[in-house]
């Protein structure tokens, strides 16, 4: 039987390798990017710009947090983008069209998101449809529903000025509240992931689903729970984006899921499951925003921005694969 000395050494090793390294690298990369752009570009260095980076990350960050839960279970959720839009439409329907107060509209939007997530979960856990296909299908379903319910027209929130004030108002440090909401959501998500049963089972499922099932855990129920969480965060994203644009735009949203997944992966969440963190995901989301905004300020044309962002995502996944191979 090996002694504890050997296992503490292996704990050190897994700290240096493993996902902490990825998170460390991600943070380093973010700092590097910020410093780089700040140095080479004066307009980047403004408070205004840093604030817009923060705001730009808010929506993607929230979506990416939900996606993190799902990816940790070795699943994927392609529907977070359009679900976000769907939920913003629900918010619009409740608040603007039905004239109900905001404190009814917000929970309604969140519930709608969780419901979509639950449907994903049921399709995946009970009907055994592969996550890629199930969520791809729901991507289209929620997109369609959003357009049907809104009659393909934006829903404006001018009648509810407190909506904008609540979310985009600058309560502290001249930074819009959405940013604090994102960080707040991040703290809650992180606690749930690391300290609760839901989080523990998400890691267990991603690590070895069969072993988890054989250990007597109700794998189906917990999968549904995880996808519902992703849906819930998509709902929150819908509320935030509606606030930013003071309207629910039914045609927006497709493509957001890719940025969400990219943020999670860059931040160290492994697509093969069992590994991931909210902190890493938030860093990943910031990297994407910083890169996008920085490149555009510096004058890089949109097409090249896409190329560079794509290269960064591929690089991050490649690092993930290298890291996994080394620790296998």
């Amino acid at each position, binding site marked *: *039987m090996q002694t504890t000395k050997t296992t503490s050494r292996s*704990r050190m090793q897994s700290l240096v390798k493993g996902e902490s390294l990825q998170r460390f690298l991600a943070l380093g990369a973010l700092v590097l990017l910020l410093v780089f752009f700040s140095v080479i570009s004066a307009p980047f260095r403004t408070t205004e710009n840093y604030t817009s980076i923060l705001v730009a990350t808010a929506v993607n960050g929230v979506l990416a947090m939900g996606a993190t839960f799902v990816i940790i279970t070795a699943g994927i959720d392609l529907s977070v983008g359009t679900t976000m839009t769907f939920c913003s439409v629900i918010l619009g329907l409740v608040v603007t069209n039905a004239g109900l107060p905001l404190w009814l509209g917000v929970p309604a939007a969140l519930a709608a998101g969780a419901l979509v997530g639950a449907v994903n979960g049921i399709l995946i856990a009970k009907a055994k449809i592969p996550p890629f296909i199930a969520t791809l299908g729901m991507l289209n379903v929620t997109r369609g529903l959003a357009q049907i319910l809104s009659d393909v027209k934006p829903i404006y929130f001018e009648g509810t000025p407190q909506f904008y004030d609540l979310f985009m108002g600058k309560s502290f440090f001249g930074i819009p509240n959405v940013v604090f909401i994102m960080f707040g959501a991040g703290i809650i998500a992180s606690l749930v992931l690391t300290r609760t049963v839901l989080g523990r089972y998400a*890691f267990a499922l991603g*690590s*070895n689903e069969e072993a988890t099932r054989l*250990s*007597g855990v109700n794998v189906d129920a917990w999968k549904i729970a995880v996808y519902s969480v992703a849906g819930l965060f998509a709902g929150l994203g819908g509320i935030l984006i509606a606030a930013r644009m003071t309207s629910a735009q039914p045609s927006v949203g497709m493509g957001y899921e890719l940025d969400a997944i990219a943020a999670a992966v860059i931040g160290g969440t492994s697509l093969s499951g069992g590994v991931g963190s909210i902190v890493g995901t938030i860093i990943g989301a910031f990297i994407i925003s910083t890169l996008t905004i920085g490149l555009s300020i510096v004058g890089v044309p949109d097409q090249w921005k896409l190329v560079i962002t794509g290269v960064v995502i591929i690089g991050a996944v490649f690092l993930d694969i290298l890291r996994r191979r080394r620790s296998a």
Partner: protein
Amino acid sequence: MGDLLVEMTDISKSFPGVHALDSCRFELRPGEVHALVGENGAGKSTLMKILAGIYRRDAGTILVKGREVEIASPRAAQDLGISIIHQELNLMGHLTVAQNIFIGREPRGAAPFILDEKRLNAKARELFETLHLKLDPRARVSSLAVAQQQMVEIAKALSFSSDVLIMDEPTAALTDTEIDELFRIIRHLRERGAGIVHISHRLEELKQISERVTVMRDGRYVDTVQTAEASIQSIISKMVGRTIFEATPELPEHPDPEVVLEVRNLKRGRVIRDVSFQLHRGEILGISGLVGAGRTEVARAVFGADPHDAGEILIHGKPVAIRTPANAVAHGIGYLSEDRRRYGLALIMNVEANVVLASLRKFAGRLGQIKFGRTKAAAEEQVKGLAIKTPSLAQRVRNLSGGTQQKVVVAKWLTADTEILIFDEPTRGIDVGAKSEIYRLLNDLAQQGRSIIMISSELPEILRMSHRILVMCEGRITGELSAAEATQEKIMTFATQREALAAA
């Protein structure tokens, strides 16, 4: 003696295409270590998995502590006080030792959904102290050696303070010291009144630790004996049973002395431990052994399907580097895998396409276009030569019978001009009639001068077909028998023996 802890009667279980268990019975007394033995496919694991809630029985009754029960899930078994140490490790590599052991039963903190990690690790430490185990509760399971992972699996099963503990080959990855420790724990449990089912093929071990031995064969219950009174030989005889041979077994003719293939000191981790052998021209070399003995692994290593850590492969006396199946095929080696549907055939493609699959280059023109005239001719030749029963060359292979599919795989390798053929379980899933055709085919191939390695778990088959038989156990060759001297008992003895054959 008191009431029985477990009483299983008339248990039957079928999987699609396989009748795994037929009216089996098993009983377990409190304070008893009850060994469960049998050959590959005898049904031991299946029977115990039913008891552990992993499979549902099709028929029969189970009584636990005198009460009739339905064990619908692993959770239900746990609630009944039954826990199992699996043969294959069932751990979540990304989680820590403590998290694995207490999954589903984690101590909660301030609220019922919040975990108390400190208490979790403390509970684990307590458990390890009771079991005298030196494990770090916070170590990530993937960072542990296999033996330690097995100890985690054991600790997990023992943490349930169950009345019934099922151990399926628990000592496979352990050293002698660790095994002694495990036995100490088992004896302690026994004193506490728990009942232990010990599935193993290590008969000498079972002699040390068990009170009774139950033997199963071909999904049926054979007998239960007192360990102290039964000899290892008698247990082996029951495992093997008497099988009816055909009146005149076809003995293959004597092979050439030329060594076509030689393997020296092949090693791969713990799965292949220093394997060396020779294959002569025109010979059928049988390789026998129990599941997990490493036979398929050796075949795959020789074929380049898996990498090997050390060792040499020589073809016609010349060392060759075989790192991929492409290398192996280039040197004239073909491999017919156990699972022909998964690894041997492109099921949705037709007979013609499958026959030329391993040698397509030969049928391609300069621009890479396939010369269909030539492929058709080659496929027709094979269909005629091997008497492949197919309505046409365009028939999808998926629709053919098992025996016919096997012939298509053989055709593929013959078209690729391979002179060394490795057959892994050649007649698995093939009905009796087609089997003898495959045997005749093997003989013909040997007589043509091809050299054959035949891996089989069916003892009558190995005895009937082989010129020589190698027996493997736990990654080593433990015995070599000529056709004349080989018997089922001798093979089983070698197959359950842990020490390697002394170098010949």
